[in-house]
């Protein structure tokens, strides 16, 4: 390499850094457009690929050359867990957005009741775990730079690492920490990171293709040559059992699954900078695809390096060494830029996320407790900015200090396992409500302690910092405390061993301590907010926000130029006077969230709790707004009351025991109550004695079951006066379905019932008139005969023996006719009581049928019994019923009189709870019109007969509670069915 080439490499490096600044600046300029759907989703997906760092470039190849396929777990884990992203990650994103969370430490602190100590613990431990990771990136930059310029260059004494570190710090400050609110979209930074993801992917694929097809003859050649190699062929499989390599495989899969979501940089781009919850779905397939593509060539490069150089110890540099050896400098430069871009993206995002943790969770608690409120915004912003520089500087220092014995990849893995210690508290806390702050605290502490003991100590031993006797004999020669075989657990590699013990203690302590301790109100409400579902009980009375205090707070904790705009948004352009109490409570929550985005959950809670008091003026305003509310409530109450009072029905309310609480004016009038009398009554007291027994139970049951009840009752006034009424009662509940009492409406039906009675009376009178006319008509005929005969006899004009006797006979027959009419009439009108006994109905029907058969004989009418169920019995008045049957039979015979083939069928059978006597004939039949009148007294279609027969049948059937069904077709015949209830009637019924 010559001086020019070296200088140009330095130039390329600087140009690339400049390019990053330019991209970010332009993106900021067009941030509005870049935040529209296609751009922001693509940016999001590419930015997530900040997961692939310089480690992917150099470390993966190194790992592949040394341990075979194991490196794939680091990328397979994320691909696998992406299947859960639409569920788990979306919930994580949703909660983080709701709570305005900006870092993983803030997330955990917020979940467990916005606990400041927990946040500090997590932040401190994560920062400790991540600094080596940043150091790793810087080391990669430095190592690759050295390789590029070679050992004999004038630049060989120059290490660009510090320059790069500081430049990236400045980049982070300019484009990341320009605003304290990290939930705001950092378009410039995200776009630059996305562009870097493209650069590294292109670079890797390019060099992969170059090595595979440029240096070798494709995949198969490389694989075939390695498979034939006695030593290296083992790289193409996992070590055969003992299962050690499978456990290491599983452990690495597990830690990479959690790390891809919880690493500070991943949490920042994946969760905090997520543009839209739904974009997670796109990221879930695009990100694993990105990982797949970038990993295609790792193995060919690693194996190609082995085949070329034969030494696995320098495998980390294969990716650069291969093109350099092939004299393909352009390719080497591309690789260098790819690795550089991977490193810079990681350093920028990681240092940004870590500085936020340092500022919010480590420094801010001290600043706040120091009561130096006035400068909090600037103090916090500057501490964040300073934090970025501190983090990159620490990384640089670590990179310089670290002697280089460890392979890069091992440092990366240790960082992964460190951040995995946050997974139980963070991810279980998202689904398990019972997790407590103490559980999280103990779990994370133990996890990190074990991480240090079982993983860092052995690494330090390898490094030579700690004597190796520690591993072999354990501390103080206690073998079972050996960091690589804790409690005698041996047979595992160091990594699996460390992952197992740290997670075992972490999860175990988290679950156990959580179950054994209880949550305070803050924890409960935050657990509910994170896990979802209703808050089991309200958290402690929230402090009400004072508007003037709010203004002061916003000016103190948010940038001055945005304060007024934010205030306007918060107040929704309402004047402070217009705010109601719910508005103020809502305002408090929103301000707390706003502060959370900038200062973290714990600090925001601290500030709100500490600061919010109500000023005199605002107290007065609150009182006034309460009074306004009360006034408007009273107004609507009065309106409702006047509606109730003006209704004519009795409207009453009762408590749960049925005691009347209120009765409206109409009700008091109706029931004759004075204003003070209502409370001593229950709703049963306003019912008549009989109804209380009849429906009281039903009403009480309905009310007890929360149903409504309605029906006819008789009401009872205080003066013991009964009146017909309709009652409707329904239950009243509060929003939790707890019964409060009932509301009832009692409608006085006196008027309606009186009207009904008048109508019935009128009908009765009308039918009486009809009957009187019928009687008169019937009697007038025989009376006419008698009159004529009597007149003849009395005139003395008749002589002889025979004629006077005929006259006398005619008079007698007229009198007999009249007598029979009167007897029928008496039958109809007489005594309306039944004398019921149990009868077998066939015993009553049998004789009637027999006499009918005899009667039908002369005019060839055949009476047959079609069916006679002997067992059918009923409680009836036997003689009366016999009369009924006789009348019906008589009608049937008369209807068939004129036919030569007259036929009457009789049947007796049971139907349900009734007995049925069916008489059908094939006689003259009747029209529908006649059928309607058939039961009217003195209605008849026949030349003879009084027309009382069917009226009597109807009356007796009514007395038995029975029914008469008639089917008839003129000219074809009639069927009469007498339906008699077998039980008879429990109580005698009066028929007017």
């Amino acid at each position: 390499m010559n001086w020019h080439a070296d200088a140009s490499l330095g130039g390329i490096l600087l140009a690339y850094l400049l390019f990053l600044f330019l991209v970010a600046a332009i993106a900021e300029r067009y941030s509005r457009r870049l935040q529209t759907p296609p751009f922001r989703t693509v940016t999001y997906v590419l930015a997530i690929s900040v997961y692939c760092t310089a480690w992917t470039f150099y470390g993966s190849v190194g790992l592949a050359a040394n341990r075979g396929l194991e490196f794939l777990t680091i990328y397979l884990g994320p691909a696998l867990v992406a299947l859960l992203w639409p569920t788990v990650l979306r919930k994580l994103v949703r909660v983080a957005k709701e709570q305005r969370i900006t870092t993983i430490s803030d997330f955990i602190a917020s979940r467990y009741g916005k606990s400041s100590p927990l946040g500090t613990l997590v932040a401190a431990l994560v920062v400790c775990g991540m600094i080596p990771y940043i150091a790793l990136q810087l080391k990669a930059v430095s190592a690759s730079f050295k390789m590029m310029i070679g050992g004999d260059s004038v630049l060989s004494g120059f290490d660009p690492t510090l320059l790069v570190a500081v430049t990236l710090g400045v980049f982070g400050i300019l484009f990341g920490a320009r605003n304290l609110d990290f939930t705001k979209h950092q378009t410039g930074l995200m776009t630059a990171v996305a562009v870097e993801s493209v650069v590294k992917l292109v670079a890797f694929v390019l060099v992969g293709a170059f090595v595979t097809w440029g240096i070798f003859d494709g995949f198969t050649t490389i694989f075939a040559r390695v498979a034939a190699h006695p030593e290296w062929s083992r790289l193409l499989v996992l070590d055969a059992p003992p299962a050690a390599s499978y456990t290491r495989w599983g452990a690495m899969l597990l830690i990479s699954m959690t790390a891809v979501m919880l690493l500070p940089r991943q949490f920042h781009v994946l969760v905090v900078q997520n543009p839209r919850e739904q974009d997670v779905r796109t990221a879930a397939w695009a990100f694993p695809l990105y990982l797949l593509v970038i990993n295609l060539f790792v193995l060919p490069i690693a194996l190609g390096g082995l085949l070329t150089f034969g030494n696995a110890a320098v495998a980390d540099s294969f990716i650069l060494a291969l093109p350099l050896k092939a004299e393909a400098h352009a390719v080497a430069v591309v690789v260098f830029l790819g690795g550089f871009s991977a490193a810079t993206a990681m350093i920028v995002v990681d240092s940004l996320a870590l500085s936020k943790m340092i500022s919010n969770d480590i420094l801010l608690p001290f600043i706040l407790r120091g009561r130096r409120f006035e400068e909090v915004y600037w103090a916090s912003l500057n501490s964040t900015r300073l934090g970025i520089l501190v983090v990159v500087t620490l990384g640089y220092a670590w990179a310089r200090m670290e002697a280089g014995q460890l392979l890069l990849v091992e440092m990366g893995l240790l960082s992964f396992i460190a951040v995995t210690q946050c997974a139980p508290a963070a991810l279980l806390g998202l689904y398990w409500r019972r997790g407590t702050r103490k559980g999280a605290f103990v779990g994370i502490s133990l996890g990190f302690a074990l991480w240090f003991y079982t993983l860092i100590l052995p690494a330090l031993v390898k490094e030579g910092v700690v004597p190796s006797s520690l591993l072999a004999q354990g501390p103080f020669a206690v073998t079972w405390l050996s960091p690589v075989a804790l409690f005698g657990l041996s047979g595992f590699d160091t990594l699996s061993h460390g992952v197992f013990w740290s997670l075992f203690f972490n999860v175990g302590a988290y679950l156990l301590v959580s179950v054994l301790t209880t949550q305070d109100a803050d924890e409960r409400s935050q657990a509910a907010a994170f896990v979802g579902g209703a808050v089991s009980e309200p958290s402690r009375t929230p402090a009400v926000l004072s508007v003037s205090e709010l203004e002061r707070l916003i000016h103190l904790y948010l940038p001055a130029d945005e304060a007024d705009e934010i205030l306007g948004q918060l107040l929704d352009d309402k004047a402070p006077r217009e705010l109601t109490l719910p508005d103020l409570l809502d305002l408090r929550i929103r301000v707390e969230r706003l502060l959370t985005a900038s200062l973290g959950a714990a600090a925001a809670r601290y500030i709100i709790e500490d600061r919010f008091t109500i000023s005199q003026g605002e107290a007065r305003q609150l009182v006034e707004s309460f009074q306004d509310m009360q006034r408007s409530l009273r107004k609507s109450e009065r309106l409702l009351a006047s509606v109730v009072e003006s209704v004519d029905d009795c409207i009453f309310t009762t408590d749960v025991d049925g005691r009347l609480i209120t009765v409206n004016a109409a009700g008091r009038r109706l029931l004759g109550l004075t204003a003070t009398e209502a409370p001593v009554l229950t709703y049963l007291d306003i019912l008549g004695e009989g109804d209380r027994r009849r429906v009281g139970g039903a009403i009480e049951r309905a009310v007890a079951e929360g149903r409504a009840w309605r029906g006819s009752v008789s009401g009872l006034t205080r003066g013991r006066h009964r009146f017909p009424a309709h009652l409707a009662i329904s239950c009243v509940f509060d929003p939790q379905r707890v019964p409060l009492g009932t509301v009832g409406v009692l409608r006085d039906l006196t008027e309606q019932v009186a009207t009904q009675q008048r109508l019935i009376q009128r009908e009765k009178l009308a039918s009486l008139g009809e009957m009187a006319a019928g009687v008169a008509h019937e009697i007038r005929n025989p009376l006419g005969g008698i009159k004529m005969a009597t007149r003849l006899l009395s005139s003395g004009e008749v002589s002889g023996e025979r004629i006077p006797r005929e006259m006398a006979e005619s008079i007698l027959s007229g009198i007999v006719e009249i007598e029979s009419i009167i007897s029928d009439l008496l039958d109809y009108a007489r005594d309306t009581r039944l004398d019921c006994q149990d009868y077998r109905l066939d015993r009553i029907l049998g004789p009637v049928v027999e006499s009918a058969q005899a009667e039908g004989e002369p005019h060839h009418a055949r009476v047959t019994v079609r069916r006679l169920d002997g067992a059918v019995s009923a409680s009836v008045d036997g003689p009366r019923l016999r009369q009924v049957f006789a009348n019906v039979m008589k009608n049937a015979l008369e209807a068939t009189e004129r036919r030569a083939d007259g036929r009457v069928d009789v049947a007796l059978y049971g139907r349900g709870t009734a007995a049925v006597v069916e008489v059908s004939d094939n006689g003259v039949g009747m029209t529908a019109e006649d059928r309607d009148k058939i039961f009217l007294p003195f209605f008849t279609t026949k030349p003879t007969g009084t027309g009382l027969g069917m009226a009597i049948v109807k009356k007796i059937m009514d007395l038995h509670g029975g029914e008469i069904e008639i089917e008839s077709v003129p000219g074809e015949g009639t069927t009469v069915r007498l339906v008699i209830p077998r039980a008879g009637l429990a109580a005698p019924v009066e028929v007017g």
Partner: protein
Amino acid sequence: MKARDLLSACFLVFGALLVWPLLSIANRPALVGGVPSLVLYLFLVWAAIVGVLAWVAARAGGDDP
């Protein structure tokens, strides 16, 4: 939601495919089409995961629960 249940089930299935003992089936020193069987197996599983996720995302489209 059905898609999420499907993905959760796939997580278990693919998870099982990627660890012992199922992994040991592909873990043999043989080349399939010139590619080591384990390498081929892992990349196929990987591609299947991407396929399932892409299919679910495409089917869900722009609408959102």
